[in-house]
């Protein structure tokens, strides 16, 4: 599809550990379209964050190793870029917001210093000056002065009150929610096309969580960003995402528009996940879980990695990795139960 901004194809990632080789990602397929919010959900350890980190190549490469696959961004494979190329991709096209705002800002430098660097390097890479500045080649001091103005605007944009004073403060003088706003400002300083938000609200108070999500939603829509939102909170997905991809043990097992996924989950794992949601209306009886455990990544089950926990398991689930089945053009599932309902033919 040509409205695709980012496409991950058959991505395999291993980690070399003392106990052996952990097959962290085993053929991830994921597509992110221009201007859409895609939720990436799954349990802890299923590879959501690793998938996201692999996009801008932020995975530490000795223990980690990408053995197969492509990450296509606007037609180029990011995995093939040299160091300079990937650095400029990060500066120009990408904003990344991480989980913990406390550890993600450098405690030794003022917000001003960190924001100015973000603005300077992102606008340098873009070959464009911070909005509305003069055209003659700017000295580096002039550049930093312009970037300072732009930084204050960015802080206003993410809703920091009193930004022109607070910009001189240090991270420890900000609350967690405020720090996350600053990090969002840094991520968006270069007007990227892609925003990856890796559990951006997990470390925050519940009341602040909603504010930060709303901020991401508003800014994302306003700037026409494609957003990859990683979360284990399906409620968040339902609220702000257009589509959702469910991961299980290193693979994407189902992708669908949000409404379809909630109304008609196909993969037995997705069904279990939705049943495990607490409902306000539901009668008491507590929560329902999925029996079994997350598989060991060093010696994962052959075939479909969910088969040991699956109620509908068939013989060939234990041997063959399920290919994609397209329930509709938009609703894809990787499960042998749907092999025969195949209507649209295999993709590649």
């Amino acid at each position: 599809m040509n409205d695709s901004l980012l496409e991950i194809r058959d991505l395999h990632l291993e980690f070399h550990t003392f106990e052996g080789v952990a097959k962290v990602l085993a053929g991830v397929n994921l597509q992110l379209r221009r201007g859409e919010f895609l939720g990436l959900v799954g349990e802890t350890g299923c590879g959501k964050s690793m998938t996201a980190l692999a996009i801008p190549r932020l995975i530490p490469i000795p223990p980690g190793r990408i053995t197969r696959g492509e990450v296509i961004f606007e037609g180029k494979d990011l995995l093939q870029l040299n160091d300079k190329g990937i650095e400029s991709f990060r500066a120009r096209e990408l904003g990344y917001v991480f989980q913990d705002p406390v550890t993600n800002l450098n405690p030794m430098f003022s917000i001003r210093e960190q924001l100015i660097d973000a603005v300077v390097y992102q606008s340098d890479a873009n070959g464009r000056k911070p909005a509305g500045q003069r055209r003659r080649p700017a000295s580096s001091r002039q550049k930093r002065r312009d970037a300072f103005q732009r930084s204050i605007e960015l802080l206003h944009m993410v809703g920091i009150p009193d930004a022109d004073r607070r910009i001189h403060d240090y991270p420890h003088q900000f609350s967690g929610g405020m720090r996350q706003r600053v990090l969002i400002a840094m991520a968006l300083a270069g007007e990227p096309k892609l925003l990856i938000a890796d559990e951006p609200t997990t470390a925050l108070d519940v009341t602040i969580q909603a504010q930060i999500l709303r901020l991401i939603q508003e800014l994302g829509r306003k700037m026409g960003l494609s957003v990859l939102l990683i979360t284990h909170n399906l409620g968040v997905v339902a609220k702000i995402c257009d589509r959702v991809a469910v991961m299980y043990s290193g693979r994407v097992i189902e992708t669908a528009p949000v409404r379809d996924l909630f109304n008609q989950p196909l993969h037995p794992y997705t069904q279990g996940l939705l049943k495990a949601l607490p409902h306000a209306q539901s009668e008491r009886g507590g929560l329902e879980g999925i029996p079994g455990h997350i598989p060991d990544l060093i010696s994962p089950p052959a075939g479909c990695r969910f088969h040991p926990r699956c109620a509908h398991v068939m013989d060939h689930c234990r041997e063959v990795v399920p290919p994609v089945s397209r329930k509709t053009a938009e609703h894809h599932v990787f499960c042998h139960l749907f092999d025969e309902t195949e209507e649209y033919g295999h993709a590649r």
Partner: protein
Amino acid sequence: MGAHGNPVDHSTNATMNIYIYVLRRLLLVIPVLLGLSLITFSISRLVPGDPVGLAAGPQSTPEIRERMAAEFGLDRPIPEQYINYMAGVLQLDFGRSLYTKRDVNIELQARIPATLELTLAAIIFASTIGIPLGIVSSLHQNKPPDHVSRLLTLFFVSFPSFWLAMIFQSALGVYWDITPVAGRFPRLALPPQRVTGLLSIDSLLAGDLTAFFSTLHHIALPAFVLSLGALASITRITRASMLEALNNESVRTERSIGIPWALIVMKYVLRNAFTATFTIISLEFGWLMAGAVLVEAIFGWPGLGGYIVDASLNNDFQPIMGVTLVYGVIFSTVNIITDICYGLIDPRIRFG
């Protein structure tokens, strides 16, 4: 927007904070020095032995010894002796040596700069080599540059400095005759006019380049030998704290923003790692002053080391007290400077 805000107000506030911070540190030195003097004084008086007898010699009569004790105020009760001594110290009078009968002041004045210059040279050398070596090591963790640096530093900490001193002295000083064997300045040359007492600085102030290079020539080998242990510690601590800082999540954020790797390392990571490096430099400075005793002895360096060794052998407590207090003052000064540096490096401390 667009208005400049009011950064001036804010920075004034920050400067104020720094002054208060420095003042607090300075005030804390007073009890430290008082405690130090009390402890050294008590130890020197309570330790068994008869300093007066040693100083007066085996032939002396009890009358001579009594007269001597009275002359030095040693017949008074110990608390009174302490108060008298401290009253003198406040006027920078450290008393007189029982043994040589020379004023401790005069000796200290001549010897403090010599030790200070040697220790400073050693710590500067150790830092300028150790910090970059540690950084390179951390950036190439478990690769050849790291192995080389770790092996070297292991050698440096493992060899005792007095042994290295003798080896280098006989190789470079005697066999190849590249460096002077001993001393601080050529015996027959006239030293520059004394301003700071540090010969290198005084000779520069006097505009005497020959004297300056001669000073460097003399100090090079002892300072080098003295620095090796510190160099090793500084390298290793820098490497370890750099590795820790490189693993910080903020580094990943900075990379995701697209800030060039070199800038991330030299600006952000280094600053995070520097607190630990500063700590070890200031600690090493104290240890080097102590370690200088042996190196000074081998290279005939006219510093505090030789003085305190002689005084200890004769149970001559006035010089011991004097030197100990001087060590205390230097050590506290270094600590204050370090504390101020912490404040400058880490805003959480400055505003805390």
